[in-house]
Structures are given as C-alpha cells and as structure tokens.
C-alpha cells in the first residue's frame, strides 16, 4: 500500500495549537482522576473470596480487585463516552488476565483463551512466550492463586473524537500456593498495545515477569 503522510504548514496557529494541546492534555489527566476513573471492578477468580491462605484458617486474604484507570487522553473524547470507551478497551486486558493467570482451576498447564482478544499474529507470538504471557511456568505446581494487586492504567489516542489506539500499563501480582502450602509471588508488569479494529484487540505486548517471596514486589517498590 502506498500512502502519503505529509506535513503542511500552519505557521500562525502553531503556538496556539501547541498551547491548546498542552491544556487539553492537562485537563484530560485531571479529568481522569474523577469522572473517568472506572469503579474498581471485581473479576471472577479461582480463589474463593475470602481465600484461606496456607491452610491456616485464621489467615484470610481477599483477592485484590481489578482497578482500571484512564491516565492519559490524547485527543478528544466526549466526557459522557469516556467511561464506556475505557470499559471497552479494558475488556480484552481483563480477559487476558483472567484466562492467563487468575481464573480457572489449579494445578494446570494450559491456559486456553488467554489470547482470545489478541490479533492472530500477536496471539501466535504470545503463545510462544507463554512462560511470561501466562502462568504456564508455575501453573502445574500450584493449587491456588490469589491476586494481591491488579491495576490497568490506560493511555488513549483519540483523534477526531474516536479512540483508535491505547497503551495499557499492567501490573499483576499473584500469590501462588503450592500443595505443600508454601507460597511464591509472581509479578507481571509491562504494556499491552491495543487498537480498535472492529472491537478492541491486543496487537502487541512488552511484558516482564519476576518471581519472589510473598511481599517482595511491594518491598521492591518501596
């Protein structure tokens, strides 16, 4: 395909436009802290709620809720539509987190449907790296998982009043419980890249996975 992407000259409007973009960017950011922040959405998990950890009946842990937040809106999106747009973009991310890590019964090796909302090529690439993109590396050794942190922060590109692309900054911290009641903490952080092509789909990813003792993710953050 041959396309022409060309820069035109609008000299008198440059400074005004750039100032406007700064203001729009700033107001979008402020706005997202109130009305565009979606309410924390509970997600079905395999862990009972509350979950008994380590077989100790006195220690219970609630699975962390999934928090989705619009942190950057670059462009225009009517205020009344932001909540539904954010929900639409977050849906494939939530689906991946559920099918790839949090949902289903443990122990298991397979995570079917983890990439159902990825483009075909992205799903193929993600499947090849399933030790990071799903819980495949640990799944067979675990009897249960409890998410202790689940956040999705969205940056949305919305020219002409319609969202076209988005980056989802994802943090998932899971407590994995083995049959011998020992625990391991899995943290998956990074970004998913999404575009709206019909529905929203993940077309790229850049993720990192770390393992550690329970609480190590929070200790590293401090």
């Amino acid at each position: 395909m041959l396309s022409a992407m060309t820069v035109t000259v609008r000299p008198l409007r440059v400074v005004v436009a750039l100032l406007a973009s700064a203001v729009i960017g700033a107001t979008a950011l402020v706005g997202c802290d109130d009305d565009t922040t979606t309410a924390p959405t509970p997600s079905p998990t395999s862990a009972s709620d509350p979950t008994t950890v380590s077989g100790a009946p006195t220690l219970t842990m609630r699975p962390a809720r999934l928090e989705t937040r619009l942190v950057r809106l670059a462009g225009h999106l009517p205020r009344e539509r932001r909540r539904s747009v954010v929900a639409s973009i977050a849906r494939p991310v939530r689906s991946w987190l559920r099918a790839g890590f949090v949902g289903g019964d443990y122990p298991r090796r397979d995570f079917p449907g983890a990439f159902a909302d990825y483009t075909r090529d992205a799903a193929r690439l993600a499947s090849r790296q399933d030790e990071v993109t799903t819980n495949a590396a640990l799944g067979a050794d675990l009897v249960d998982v409890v998410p202790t942190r689940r956040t999705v922060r969205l940056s949305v590109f919305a020219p002409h009043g319609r969202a076209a692309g988005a980056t989802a900054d994802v943090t998932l911290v899971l407590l994995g419980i083995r049959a011998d009641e020992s625990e391991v903490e899995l943290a998956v952080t990074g970004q998913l890249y999404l575009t709206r092509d019909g529905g929203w789909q993940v077309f790229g990813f850049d993720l990192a996975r770390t393992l550690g003792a329970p609480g190590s993710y929070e200790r590293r953050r401090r």
Partner: protein
Amino acid sequence: MNNVRSRLRRWTVLAVVLAVVGLTVPDSATPRFDGSLVKVENARGLDTDPGVVWILALGSDARPGEPVLRSRADSIHLVGINPRTGHATIIGIPRDSYVDIPGYGRDKINAAMVYGGPQLEAAAVAGMMGITPDYVFTTSFWDFSRMVWSIGGVDVHSAHAFSEPLVTIREGVNHVNGVEALVFVRERYQLPNGDFDRSRNQGQFMVDGLRQVASVAAESGGLERALWTFAKHTDIDVGPVELYRLARAVLQVDPQLVDNCVIDGGTTFAGGASVVLPDLGQARAYAQDAGSDATLASGCS
C-alpha cells in the same frame, strides 16, 4: 590522686565510646542488606504486516509560500524497519541522482516530486531501488524544526565539526534544538564529501531522533501525546488505527541496530546541470540485502 583521676577519665571515655558504638553499629550477627537481586524474564511481540515496513522519508525544499508536496525533494531516504528484530536500514539517495522518472524520462530524482508529488517520487525511488515504499512521509524545513522542538531537541552525533553564523557543531555529540537541527541536516559545503556526507548526516539525525522519540514515548502516555501533536499538524492519508500501529512498529527499532548508508555515485553534467550518476548496482544490492529483514549483512559497502 592524679593517677586515679586519669584512669577514671580513661574508663569514662571508653564507656561513652562503647555506648555510642553499641547504639549506632548494627549487630554483626544479623547484617541487613536492603538491595535485591531479581531474575526478570521478558516477552515482547508486535503484530506487523508486512514483516518489514519500508518508509520513504522526504524533506521538501519548499520555501515559504511554495507547495510542500510539489517542490523538489531535498533529502531522500528509504528506511526499512523490522519491528520483530529491532533492526533498520536507512539508505540515503543523493538528491541529484540522474534516473528514470516514470512518464517524464531521465531527470534528477528530486524533480519527481515537482512533477507528481510524493507518489511519483516514490515510484522513481522504487524504479531505482527495486523496493516500493509502504508509506511516504514528507516534511518541510519549518515542520522539521517544529517536530525537533516538540520532542525537546536531539542529541546528534556528528562525524565532522563545522560552523554557521550562530550555530556551531562539534565533532561528537551535540544537543541541537529545531533551528540547529536544520543547520545540521542542511550543511554540505563544509563536509569532505559534500552532498553524500550531508545525506549520511540526515540518516544519522533520524537514528538520534528516534532515540529521543523513544525516550518521550517511554513516559506514561508519551506515545499517545506525541502522536496527537503530530496528527494535529500533519495531513495524514492513513487512518488513526494504522497510524498508531505504525508508530508502535517504528518504536520497536533499536537505534544500535540501524545501518545508515548512502548510495555512491560520480558527478557529471546533463542538460547543463551537475548531476550524480548513482551506483545502481550498489543501490540494488542494498535493497536485495535489506529487503527481507531490514539488515545489511555486510554493512555499508
């Protein structure tokens, strides 16, 4: 008596020292180290079609009031990027290259834009190189400066030192703003190989500019913000979804993995003007080498 006082003073000093040490030095049996060593496993992937994306980057010679898309193409670079591997190849084409322009006979390649805009320029480059660009990106002097300004300037590596009124470029790394960047990419008289070195400098600026863009995009929402600014000042024929995916593809390029070459050629006269007879064998060899993976196995020959 003095002896007793002296001993008492020594014991007192010793007791104070021990007390202070005991309070401030942690127990050696339980040393505390707050660092950590964590193994990180990574996964990266991007859906791109085609696997190698070819972009024709044109710098228009338009002066104020002249049409950007129908002025000569002053800088011409065919850029191949491979988002899967992070490799890229920049092939600089001398603007005075004397080649076939479809429908117009032989002429300088930069005249193709005057005759038929970016599409004809792309066709002329395709005829010369054997690669048809997937996208053509055209910018003007002032929009180039503005883009450099909008990303906070660029740390550009210069192989040569030169100076113009108010602008001095040192050999090595120079932080340049929009105006200085324009001087850097336009200078040719003070360079040993004139227009060829200028084309190489322009390719180098793309590499260093990409590094700066990647730095901006690494901030939360940085890519979206940069694209929005870009989209507001650019006439774009591609849809916003395709633009977003293209931007993500470009950001996969590792500046360390970019080959920056310029096609050689000899100068002669044609139609009363100085022209470059490009080394078409070299041009085709570059295209064939980089065509499938955007890498030059043997670098710039």
